[in-house]
C-alpha cells in the first residue's frame, strides 16, 4: 500500500487501527507546518522541537477521537496550538522580573532580588534563530500576543480560511475576524518605519 497517496482521513483511520506506517506518513506531512507554527509561537528552536514532538505524541495518542467529518489538518493544528498556548501560559507564570521582586519593600530588597543578565556571545543555535526569525516582519509577529500570532500564522502562512481558524482556535468567527484585523493593524504600526 502506498501511504503517500492516501488522504489524511484515510491515514488517520489506518493510524487509529495501529498502523505504524500511517503514523509515519502523517508525521512526514505535518512536521513542517506544525513545527513552523510552534517555532514562531515560542521563538526558540530547541523548545519548538520539544513542543512539536509532544504535540505529535498527543495527537497520535488521541487519534481515535478524531472525527473524520472535520478536516484532519484543522484537528491536528488545534492539538498543537492548544499545547503551545498551554506552555506559553505556564511560562508566563514562571517568569521573573529583571527589575527585582514586586514585593520588595526596600531598595536593598529590590537590589537583592534583581536578576542580573550577563552579556554573552550568541550561541550557534541563537545565531540560526536570529537569522530565521530576524526579518522585520518576523520580529513584528513576535511582538503580537499569542492569540493574534496564531491567527496571523494560520491565515498567512498556512492559508486557512477564517472559519477553519475559528475551528482550530475554538473561537467564534467574529472573534477571529477581530483578532486578525487587530493583529494586522499592530503589524502595520510596528512596520510603519519601513514605509517611510
Amino acid at each position, binding site marked *: 500500500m502506498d501511504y503517500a497517496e492516501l488522504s489524511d482521513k484515510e491515514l488517520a483511520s489506518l493510524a487509529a487501527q495501529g498502523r505504524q506506517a500511517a503514523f509515519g506518513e502523517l508525521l512526514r506531512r505535518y512536521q513542517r507546518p506544525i513545527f*513552523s507554527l510552534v517555532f514562531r509561537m515560542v521563538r526558540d528552536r530547541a523548545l519548538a522541537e520539544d513542543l512539536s514532538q509532544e504535540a505529535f*505524541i498527543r495527537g497520535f495518542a488521541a487519534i481515535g477521537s478524531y472525527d473524520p467529518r472535520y478536516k484532519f489538518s484543522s484537528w491536528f493544528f488545534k492539538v498543537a496550538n492548544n499545547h503551545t498556548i498551554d506552555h506559553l501560559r505556564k511560562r508566563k507564570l514562571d517568569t521573573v522580573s529583571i527589575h527585582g521582586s514586586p514585593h520588595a519593600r526596600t531598595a536593598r530588597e529590590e537590589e537583592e532580588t534583581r536578576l542580573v543578565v550577563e552579556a554573552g556571545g550568541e550561541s550557534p543555535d541563537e545565531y540560526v534563530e536570529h537569522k530565521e526569525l530576524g526579518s522585520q516582519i518576523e520580529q513584528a509577529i513576535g511582538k503580537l500576543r499569542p492569540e493574534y500570532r496564531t491567527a496571523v500564522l494560520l491565515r498567512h502562512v498556512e492559508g486557512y480560511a477564517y472559519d477553519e481558524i475559528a475551528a482550530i482556535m475554538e473561537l467564534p468567527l467574529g472573534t477571529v475576524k477581530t483578532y486578525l484585523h487587530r493583529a494586522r493593524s499592530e503589524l502595520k504600526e510596528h512596520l*510603519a518605519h519601513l514605509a517611510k
Partner: protein
Amino acid sequence: MLDNDDFSMGFPAEMNGHLTAEQIQALLDGQLSDGDFADAQEHVVFCSRCHADLEAWQLLYAELGGLSELGPSPDFAARVLEHIPAQEAAAPWRQKVRAWIAARGRSARDHLSPERLQDYVEGLVPARRVAQIEAHLSGCKACRSDMAAWQGLFEGLGTLQSMEPGEGFYERVMAQHRVLKLLEAWEPAAARTGAFARVKRLVPRTRKAWAVVAGLAVPPITIGSVLLGEVFSNPALTPGYLAYFLSWKVGELGSALGSSLMDGAVESAAAFQAYAVVEFLSGSPLIALAGAVAFAALSASAAWILYANLFQTRRTEQSYVRASI
C-alpha cells in the same frame, strides 16, 4: 434737571445724554428705583426726543397689552393625547432610520476603515460593495495611500515560509511513539496496579531528558558488556557449562533455604504453642467445633472487608470519574 452724569441707574445713559431703549423700557416696567424713576421722569419732561421715544414705547406696550389670549379648539387636547403612544413607538424607529441615513452619508464622506481596507485587499468584500470602495479610493488620496500600506503588509506576510525541524526529528517522534505503543500493550494487565501510569510517566519526553537517560545508562551497560566479554573469552567456559553451573547453584541455594525455613518453623515457640492448642482441641470436640465456627466467621469478615475496600471503592471512584468527564 437730569444730567447724564448724574443719572445713576443700573445701566449708563447713551453717550449723547439721552435715555436708552432699555432705560425707557425699565421705566415703563417699573423696574427703576425711586430715585432713578424720579430722575428719568424729570429728564423726559424736559427732553423732547426722550419724550417722543417714551410715547412710542407706551404705544407699543398698549398694543401688546391689548392682545387677547388665543385658545385651541376644544378637541385639541384629545387629539394630542391620542397620538402620544404612536409617537413614542415611532420615535426609536425614526431615530434608527435617521441614524442609518446619517451613517450612510457619513461613510460616503469619511475614509475607509482599516477593517474594510483589509477585507478589500484580502478580497473578502462582497461584490456589491467593491464598486463603492473603488469609487471612494479613486477620489481619496489618503485611503489610496493607506491601502498601499496594507497591500505591502499582506505581501510581506505572504513571503513567510514554513520551517523545517532539525535533523532526526522524525526518528525521535516515531521512536517515542513506538515506546508508548509498547507500553500501552501492557496496559490492561499493568493498569490494575497503576504500574503502567508510573512507567509511562518515566518515559522521557524531551531531548534533554533522553540525553540524561542515555548518559545514565551508558556507563553500566559498557561496564557490564566488558565484564561479560572477559568472562566468555575464557575457552573453558561455554554457555552450556555456565547454565549448568548456575542451575546447580540456584538449586543448592533453594534447598538450603527450604531446609532452614522448615527447621526454624518446626523448632519455633509458635509451632510448639500451635501443637499444644491442637492437642487440647482434639481432647474436646465441642470446643474444636466452636473454634472452627469462630475461625470461619472471622475469615468471612476479613474477606468482606477486603472486597469492600478493593472492589467497591474502585467502582465508586470510577463513577466519580465518569461524572466529572
